[in-house]
């Protein structure tokens, strides 16, 4: 259902979409039943001359059933929904599948910046690639992220991945995602973070291993690095390898 309105591009997006459908079916049934019952009663018992009101307290067992049976059915429905909700939550937020790579995501007023391992595949080494506003990842690869904030509370959201996690100053919060569809998707900040909140956009580019290797090469080859570093500092906010090496 959600996929009709927004692409699903991560492995757990479908879990959330399916849970959404489960809940929609259950609560949709109850909503239609209750609204239908209400309008039927309004119509059936509209005021008519000569028809007296029935004196009902609500304690009569044969009438009370109309409340108590739905009451138990709703508890059953709640349990079904909870089972689904907790299963999905557990899979996304409580356990982390083994990582193919780890990235660092940093929120600050009002931009997202990313630190990714360079060709050596290890974070916090000299060949790390740092980018602002744009993150490149490989399709069908499990990423762990470490989420930080430099100032206020932000929220790191990639709607197409169905991913959302607040970034808190003073803490590192871990999470994971596994993109499964090539494309470019929005990164949002979904927590009010000041006047630039609406400008705190980013993009995540999910690419094939070949494209990603090419991107890695472009961003870590000494030639490019020197070229970007020598005449003027890079204007687009991309801190490149050259700066790291200096």
């Amino acid at each position: 259902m959600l996929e009709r309105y927004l692409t699903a591009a991560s492995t757990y997006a479908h879990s959330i979409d399916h849970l959404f459908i489960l809940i929609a079916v259950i609560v949709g049934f109850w909503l239609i039943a209750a609204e239908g019952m209400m309008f039927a009663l309004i119509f059936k018992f509209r005021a008519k001359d000569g028809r007296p009101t029935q004196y009902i307290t609500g304690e009569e067992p044969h009438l009370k059933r109309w409340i108590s049976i739905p009451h138990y059915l709703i508890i059953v429905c709640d349990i079904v929904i909870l089972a689904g909700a907790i299963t999905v939550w557990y899979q996304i937020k409580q356990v982390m599948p083994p990582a193919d790579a780890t990235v660092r995501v940093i929120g600050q007023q009002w931009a997202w910046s990313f630190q990714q391992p360079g060709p050596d595949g290890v974070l916090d080494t000299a060949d790390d690639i740092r980018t602002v506003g744009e993150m490149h990842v490989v399709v069908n690869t499990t990423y762990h992220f470490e989420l930080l904030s430099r100032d206020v509370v932000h929220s790191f959201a990639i709607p197409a991945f169905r991913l959302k996690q607040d970034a808190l100053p003073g803490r590192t919060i871990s999470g994971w995602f596994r993109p499964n569809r090539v494309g470019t998707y929005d990164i949002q900040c979904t927590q009010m973070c000041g006047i630039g909140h609406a400008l705190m956009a980013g993009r995540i580019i999910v690419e094939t291993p070949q494209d990603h290797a090419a991107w890695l090469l472009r961003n870590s080859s000494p030639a490019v690095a020197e070229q970007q570093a020598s005449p003027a500092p890079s204007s687009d906010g991309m801190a490149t390898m050259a700066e790291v090496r200096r």
Partner: protein
Amino acid sequence: MSTEVQHAEPGIFRKYLWSTDHKVIAMQYLFTGMAMALIGAFFAYVFRMQLGFPNQNVPGYGIVTPARYNALVTMHGSIMIFWVAMPVLIAAFGNFLIPLMVGCDDMAFPRINRLSYQIFLLSALVLLSSFLVKGGPFGGAWTAYPPLSASGAYNLTPIGATLWLLAVALEFVAFLLGGINFTVTAMNSRAPGMKMYDIPILIWMIILANIVFMASAGPLIAGAVMLLFDQTISTGFFDPTRGGDPLLWQHLFWFFGHPEVYVVLLPAMGIVAEIIAVFARKKIFGYKTVLYTTWAVGFLSFVVWAHHQFVAGVDPRMANIFSITTLLISVPVTEMVFLYIATLYGGSIHLDTPMLWALAFIAEFMIGGVTGIFLGSSGTDIYLHDTYFLVAHFHYTFVPIAIIAVFAGLTFWFPKMFGRMLNETLGKIHFWGTVIPFNVIFIPLFITGMAGDQRRIYNYAQFAEQSRPALQHLRTTSTIALLVMLSFQLVFLFNFFWSLRNGKTAGANPWRSTTLEWTVPSPPPHGNFAEMPTVYRGPYEYGLPGRADDFLPQNVPD
């Protein structure tokens, strides 16, 4: 506002500024709340225009800057909850109706009551004054999460943020005073013979709402003081660089913030119960069960707060517990709604304007209720949290509460308050002109939320997925529906003020109702009851078999 007629003569000046009559204070709360509602509605108009027609000149306002947009949504939320829903639902209806419905001459503490309104008025003025200070009003959302709210360097509204906080704290003082007063009055000042289970459901609901409010406000007031210190004398309660913790505020805020939903819901449910009983000519189906579900809701409302924080960075295991409690609270709320629907069974339903509003409350609130399940379920909340799906959901609860139920109550008790009837035709035009556009405003927003629209964004141009034309059409539709809904409020304002002078004279009991407020003249004189009433039975004796009349008031001896 009634204080504006103060210059006519000194006696009236004295009356409106210092009167301790519960009815005068109720009217002051009502008119202040209505004035604040107009301000809150104007803000909604401005920011919806910006969303519907981005970066255009908004007629009557001008260009909406990002800073102003943030301030407008912050103030809209704060005003509608703290300065409209609470004063009108709890203070206006509570003040007017508690003494009249329990059968006493005034509140237990009339002077505390007066003080409560004065502080409330001050809090509203403090809030509005933030539009005049350097940097403008606070724009960090009505939830005011630190460190953004704690530091002028982050929010760029150092004075506005402090004024907002002071205004909220003052408002809380006003409602704590009121809450004590309402509770004591209903417990101690009831007419002889009115036992616990003879109290009208509305009074029960207002009392329980006040108890929930008083029990939940403490942590937030403590939090507000800490935040005030962080802002003004550089303490570090919420500053992680100095050992503080921003999450602490979120817990303190939502420990209050979620019960607050039920603080305003319960009086609305109470108003609807009274009206359904009268216009269906029926006893409330399972009066005691309604009360038990109310108590259950009140109790459970204290253990659901962290469902606002599933993705806030708290321990993820906690989400499971709060998902369970959140879905659990759906059980008593649903049951209460079912009991109201069951009350219609076997009735003789008259669709006068108050009844239309009451039935619309149930119909619309159910949509708000079921969409809450998507958000209370931790799994789906990951995606829907802080999207327009959430915005649409809580407007489907708060608009029925603060708008639909208030109109239900106003059209129902207007004859008692002012002694004249409202015009029924205008009332129905206003009803349909409000309820239909209301749905057209918020159903599109469910869809934009499902498509990923996040909240509090003044312009989606930065987001490729969000700036699709189809989504912009939905936003524009929503804005146009808001314009239609707002324009129909003029019908209400005209009807209200026209009927004050020209309405048909109401008489004591125009709706042929059973509760005590209808046994006194309309409007009730100072001191309410010429002869203090005695109560012989419960509040909803309609359609008793073997009687000529279809209703038996509480104060008529057998």
